[in-house]
C-alpha cells in the first residue's frame, strides 16, 4: 500500500451512515499490520486516541465499537460501527485532536484522548471525534484531515 491512511481516505465525511441503532463513522486505529475483518471488536490501545483489536480476557468496559468495513495493513483510520450512539454538539477538547480520535470525558468536563495506560478511560464507553468535518478557522477552510484545537467546538459520537 502506498502509505498510511488519513481520515479523508476512508470517507469524505466523518459519519458514513446513521443506521438502525448504530452509526458508522471514521475511527483512528493503530496500524493493524494484518487484515481485521468486519465485526471484529475494538478496544482502547496504548497509543493515545487510537483503537486496536480486542483481545480475549480484556476486562475493560466495552467500547461498543466494531469494524464496519475490513481494515487492511497500514490503515490508520477505518470505518467503525458504534452501537446505540448519538452525536453531542458543542463539546470541548483538551488538546489538538483529529476526526476519528477516541476520547473520554474527563473530570474537567472536556474530552481527552483515551489511553490504555489511563485507568479512567478504560471504565467508560468511549466517544469519537466526528466533526465538524468542514469548518472555517481564522478565514481558512479546514477539511476533515485538519486537527481540531481546544478552542473549537466539536461534535462527539458517544
Amino acid at each position, binding site marked *: 500500500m502506498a502509505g498510511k491512511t488519513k481520515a479523508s481516505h476512508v470517507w469524505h465525511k466523518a459519519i458514513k451512515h446513521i*443506521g*438502525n*441503532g*448504530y452509526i458508522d463513522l471514521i475511527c483512528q486505529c493503530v496500524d493493524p499490520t494484518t*487484515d481485521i*475483518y*468486519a*465485526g*471484529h*471488536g475494538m478496544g482502547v490501545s496504548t497509543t493515545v486516541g487510537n483503537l486496536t*483489536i*480486542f*483481545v*480475549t*480476557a*480484556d*476486562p475493560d468496559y*466495552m467500547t*461498543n465499537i*466494531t469494524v464496519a468495513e*475490513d481494515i487492511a495493513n497500514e490503515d490508520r483510520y477505518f470505518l467503525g*460501527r458504534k*452501537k*446505540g450512539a448519538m452525536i453531542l454538539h458543542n463539546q470541548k477538547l483538551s488538546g489538538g485532536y483529529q476526526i476519528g480520535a477516541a476520547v473520554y470525558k474527563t473530570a474537567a468536563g472536556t474530552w481527552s484522548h483515551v489511553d490504555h495506560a489511563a485507568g479512567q478511560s478504560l471504565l467508560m464507553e468511549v466517544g469519537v471525534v466526528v466533526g465538524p468535518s468542514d469548518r472555517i478557522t481564522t478565514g481558512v477552510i479546514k477539511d476533515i484531515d485538519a486537527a481540531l484545537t481546544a478552542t473549537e467546538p466539536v461534535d462527539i459520537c458517544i
Partner: protein
Amino acid sequence: MAKTTPSLVWHKPIKVIGDGYIDLICKTPDIGATTYWVGQGLELGDDGAFVKFTTDQPDYNPNIIVAEDIVQSDLYFLGRKHGAKILHNQKLAAGTYGIGDAVYKMGAGTWTHADKDTAASLLMEVGIICGPAQRVTAGVMKTMDDTFLATEPVDICA
C-alpha cells in the same frame, strides 16, 4: 416436546426490524428443564449456537439477548441483536450451515461458524445467517430448514 426447527419458530428468519435492533432466529443447544427469560444475555457456545451468558465473561459481547422465552427442547429461538444490519451476497466457508447459525468473518474473507473453542470468534461481535429463507438450488425449491453450502450466497445479520 419435540425439538424445534427454524420454521417452527417463525416463518421468516427475521421477525421484526425494530428501533435499533433486529429480532431474528438464532440457534441454541437444548437448554434442558429450565427456561431462559426475555432479556437474558447470550454468549457463544459450540458450532454457531448461543448459550446463557456467564458472570465475568471476558469475551467480546455479541450483543444478542433473548427476545422471546426459550424453553426445554428448543433448538432455535428468537434473539434480539442490537444495532444490526443485513449484509447480502456473503460467502460461507466450506461446510453446511443453517438459518440461525452464528458466524464470524475469518481470515479467508468468508464467514464460518463461531465457536467458544475458536479464539478468533471470541473477539468479535458475531453475525447470524438469516437468509435467503427460500431459494432454488439445482432446480429444487429449498426452505428455511434446509442447509446452506459454501457455493450459495447468503444474508448475514451483523
